């Protein structure tokens, strides 16, 4: 009793979300390598894309949490999934435009929860799962990541203090490339899973798969490709904020930050927490500023990010709910098709707006002047 046309559209939308997830999060792995010059920008994003692709095949633990741990799958329809995805994509694109490294995972989870709430009310959301598996880890993970990165940074400078500056930078740049690769791999194992979970949810909702099924191979493959491609295209705006805006980073700090991120993400994923890689990476970068004497953390930038984090779940939820009411109000397949057409239009408009203040591989490392786009003197818009 499924509707195959709508199912195909929903799967395409989910892959589009995965793609935005990739390019929004390239910076988590590669921002510090790009700003310290350890890797040329385009090599960095290509390497990260390939490792995301591999990482997506590495583990399927997180997909299960998304598919069954957050909402009651019995009330989920294709319209609910489509609306949830629409909410997540809009929030991801808006934060990317502003260069804010907000959490793609929270955007997706918020969108799905918002549309479920709109469709079936509060009882359809598994609140305890949401708080214990998403909200509490989101609050703790940046703090733990900052602690580990601060300890790592202190140790690295302590151990290497007799080295000449040139030798130290050269050596740690090599280490930094290795640790950045681990973060990319961890990102693939964590974030690609979330979209696999959502597509599985849609397949279950449509009756194509039995309840409780795991992701079929074609879902794993297409999600891996979508996130790899998105990563390769590179979210230069977010890379710039993370690599230049927060702390001025040297290669030992970059290595400490990335090692901390990779360790925390992989450890948490194996406990089934669908962590936000963005929160972890940002926490690590702040930690590496705290661990080095004389380094300055730009707390105003950090504060702006933290504000965006608080807003991500509820904003994406509101967007998801509005999308549901729109699609449901029109009704049937036409509702979903019109919703997705509006989504495509909005995405196009945001992309067009971003061209006005372009950030790409050529200017990503320009001096931080308080704005996301280097050439533009106007103050950055508030989150």
């Amino acid at each position, binding site marked *: 009793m499924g509707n195959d046309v709508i199912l195909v559209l929903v799967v395409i939308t989910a892959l589009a979300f995965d793609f935005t997830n990739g390019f929004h999060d390239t910076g988590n792995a590669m921002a510090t390598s790009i700003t310290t010059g350890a890797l040329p920008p385009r090599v960095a994003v290509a390497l990260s894309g390939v490792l995301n692709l591999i990482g997506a095949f590495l*583990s399927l633990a997180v997909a299960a949490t998304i598919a069954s741990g957050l909402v009651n799958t019995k009330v989920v329809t294709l319209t609910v999934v489509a609306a949830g995805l629409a909410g997540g994509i809009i929030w991801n694109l808006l934060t990317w435009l502003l260069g804010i490294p907000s959490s793609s995972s929270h955007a997706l989870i918020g969108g799905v929860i918002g549309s479920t709430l709109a469709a079936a009310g509060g009882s359809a959301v598994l609140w305890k799962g949401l708080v214990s598996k998403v909200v509490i880890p989101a609050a703790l993970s940046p703090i733990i*990541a900052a602690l580990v990165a601060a300890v*790592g940074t202190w140790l690295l400078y302590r151990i290497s203090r007799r080295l000449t500056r040139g030798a130290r930078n050269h050596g740690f740049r090599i280490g930094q490339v290795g640790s950045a690769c681990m973060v990319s791999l961890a990102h693939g194992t964590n974030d690609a899973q979330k979209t696999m979970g959502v597509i599985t949810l849609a397949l279950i909702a449509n009756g194509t798969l039995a309840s409780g099924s795991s992701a079929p191979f074609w879902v794993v493959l297409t999600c891996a490709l979508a996130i790899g491609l998105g990563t390769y295209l590179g979210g230069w705006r977010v890379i710039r904020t993370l690599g230049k805006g927060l702390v001025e980073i040297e290669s030992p700090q970059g290595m400490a930050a990335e090692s901390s991120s990779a360790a925390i993400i992989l*450890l948490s994923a194996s406990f089934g927490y669908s962590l936000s890689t963005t929160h972890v990476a940002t926490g690590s970068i702040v930690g590496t500023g705290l661990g080095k004497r004389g380094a300055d953390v730009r707390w105003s930038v950090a504060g702006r990010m933290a504000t965006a984090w608080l807003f991500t779940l509820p904003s994406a939820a509101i967007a998801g709910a509005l999308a549901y009411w729109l699609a449901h109000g029109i009704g049937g397949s036409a509702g979903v098709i019109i919703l997705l057409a509006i989504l495509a239009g909005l995405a196009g408009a945001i992309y067009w707006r971003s061209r006005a203040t372009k950030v790409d591989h050529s200017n990503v490392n320009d001096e931080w002047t308080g704005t996301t786009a280097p050439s533009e003197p106007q103050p950055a818009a508030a989150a």
Partner: protein
Amino acid sequence: MSWINLSALWKIVVFGLIAGAGLPALFAIGLRALVMPGSRVQAAGPDSDHVYGGNVLGAVIAAICFLIILAALGWGIYEVYQIGHPAPKH
């Protein structure tokens, strides 16, 4: 199920410190051993970027450190794969 899984939390902190701060520290120790002065004539000055000083003992210590790191990464990736692909239950 409680709100905060404390046993998972302390494991993440402890193993996070070992892997996330310990392994880079080991890398730094390896790097420091590698630059130990030896047979190589050193280019003087603070901006010299030679990382190999020509000391054989240093090179051996460095190689051991780097091999431990690679082994730890390989083991970690293997563990993640194992946890992420549980054997099907019959």
